[in-house]
């Protein structure tokens, strides 16, 4: 769910440690497997990969042009919606161009409790406040952000409460070790996620998806990122289009699969097969979706100006919820390869996300400088001095602590930073609590 980080990476790398012990067992099992003509453990992922010719993989890899075309189509829908809002505002006598609000929710695993709580707290900011929670024109999510995004897209109190409640009540079976021989390398993953699959089934229902299809019929976007591992590329799914298919067919499994793929920590959680291809966590190729792969001339402000050169520019507002810390709490790393790799990976993912955030700020700056566009970017993140109360992952205590923190920060517009760094501290939150009102 967004970060091959922290303790969970232990699971992945224990595979390596366990290899030696497993070799003899594997030989025996391979022999029996060959006799029965089927893999005994997992789904035989290694067999699958070897059947794909390199030339086929190259053909499958989408080109930059194809990706740009898909992005232009999506942004074109958004531009039409903005124009429609523009016309409505003009008809009602409003002089100011509309604001276009884009919510970007990052990965972060169980730390997504922060983002869910933040959305709930944000609802408490009075609607007259300039930083009140708007109706979003677009919501993007990756990994744990993908779990939150559909609820944020609907945006009503009940939906927000539903997702907060899910993060506040993790169940023991959300993530389960795959039996005693969980470490065998032919397993599709270290862990199973029966509880997480159940939560997705229970919360992402046909009814909910019908509501999403309806809410997105006027061009609002709900996008989530996954990673197609064979070709090593991101694949962004348009969940409004997917929801419309569900509304038409009643078949919801594909959407569940997309969400579970987007949140599928590689190696730890099972990969997912979609359209015959193998998908893992969207955080592998991009822990936030913000248009960073789109050429400047295809960006939203550029498309707007191209389509409607004689209209004033709307205000574009990006709201980024980073379900992580910009700067990790320093800690001594044990002098062994497992600890070194674990710490390196979490540092790498966090650094890549921070660079993506800086890129978003830079893109906004370029739009302002080049096009005189009105683009604002704001970000919230888990304060750098916050420490989890319990070291385990998917711990109820930690997740509730983060949901509490998120609610408090969400209710305080000062939580938002207009620079690509955290400007808020956990100390700040606790001091605010003790101040007399």
């Amino acid at each position, binding site marked *: 769910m967004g970060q091959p980080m922290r303790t969970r990476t232990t699971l992945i790398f224990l595979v390596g440690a366990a290899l030696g012990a497993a070799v003899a067992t594997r030989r025996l099992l391979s022999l029996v497997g060959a006799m029965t003509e089927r893999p005994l453990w997992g789904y035989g992922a290694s067999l699958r990969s070897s059947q794909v010719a*390199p030339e086929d993989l*190259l053909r499958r890899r989408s080109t*930059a042009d194809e990706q740009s075309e898909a992005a232009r189509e999506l942004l074109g829908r958004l531009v039409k919606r903005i124009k429609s809002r523009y016309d409505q505002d003009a008809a009602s006598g409003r002089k100011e161009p509309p604001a276009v609000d884009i919510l970007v929710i990052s990965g972060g695993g169980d730390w997504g409790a922060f983002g869910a709580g933040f959305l709930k707290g944000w609802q408490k900011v009075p609607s007259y406040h300039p930083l009140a929670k708007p109706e979003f024109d677009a919501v993007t999510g990756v990994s744990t952000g993908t779990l939150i995004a559909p609820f944020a897209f609907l945006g009503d109190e009940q939906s927000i409460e539903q997702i907060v409640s899910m993060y506040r009540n993790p169940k023991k079976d959300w993530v389960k070790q795959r039996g005693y021989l969980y470490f065998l390398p032919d397993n599709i993953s270290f862990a199973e996620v029966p509880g997480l699959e159940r939560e997705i089934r229970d919360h992402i229902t046909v009814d909910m998806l019908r509501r999403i299809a309806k809410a997105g019929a006027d061009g609002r976007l709900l996008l989530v990122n996954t990673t197609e591992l064979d070709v090593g590329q991101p694949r962004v799914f348009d969940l409004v289009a997917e929801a419309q298919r569900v509304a038409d067919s009643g078949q919801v499994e594909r959407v569940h699969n997309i969400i579970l793929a987007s949140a599928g920590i590689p190696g730890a959680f099972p990969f997912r097969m979609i359209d015959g291809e193998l998908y893992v966590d969207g955080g592998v190729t991009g822990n936030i979706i913000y248009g960073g792969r789109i*050429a400047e001339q295809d960006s939203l402000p550029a498309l707007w100006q191209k389509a409607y050169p004689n209209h004033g520019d709307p205000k574009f507002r990006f709201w980024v919820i980073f379900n992580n810390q910009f700067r990790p709490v320093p800690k001594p790393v044990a002098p062994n390869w497992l600890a070194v790799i674990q710490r390196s990976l979490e540092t790498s993912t966090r650094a890549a996300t921070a660079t*993506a955030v800086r*890129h978003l700020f*830079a*893109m906004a700056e*370029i739009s302002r400088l*080049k096009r005189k566009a009105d683009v604002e970017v704001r970000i919230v993140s888990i304060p750098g001095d916050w420490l989890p109360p319990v070291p385990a992952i998917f711990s109820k205590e930690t997740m509730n602590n983060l949901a509490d923190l998120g609610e408090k920060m969400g209710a305080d517009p000062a939580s938002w930073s207009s620079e690509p760094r955290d400007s808020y501290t956990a100390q700040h939150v606790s001091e605010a609590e003790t101040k007399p009102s």
Partner: protein
Amino acid sequence: MGSPMFFAMADIARFKQKAEAEQRIVSIPGDWFPPVPGTFIKETMNNLAELGEKMGADPASWSSAPPQF
């Protein structure tokens, strides 16, 4: 994501500071395949060294556009 950021920084320097900033990038072509699987394989490393030498000798190898991937 580092290289798009690099290009963006140069853009900002040009627009904001009127700086004369040029940036060029070369990379292993997307349709290159390692001749042999594995890491630190002599055959693959020599193949890449030859490719690098050829591309290095050809100024057209440089791209001044942000990488598309």
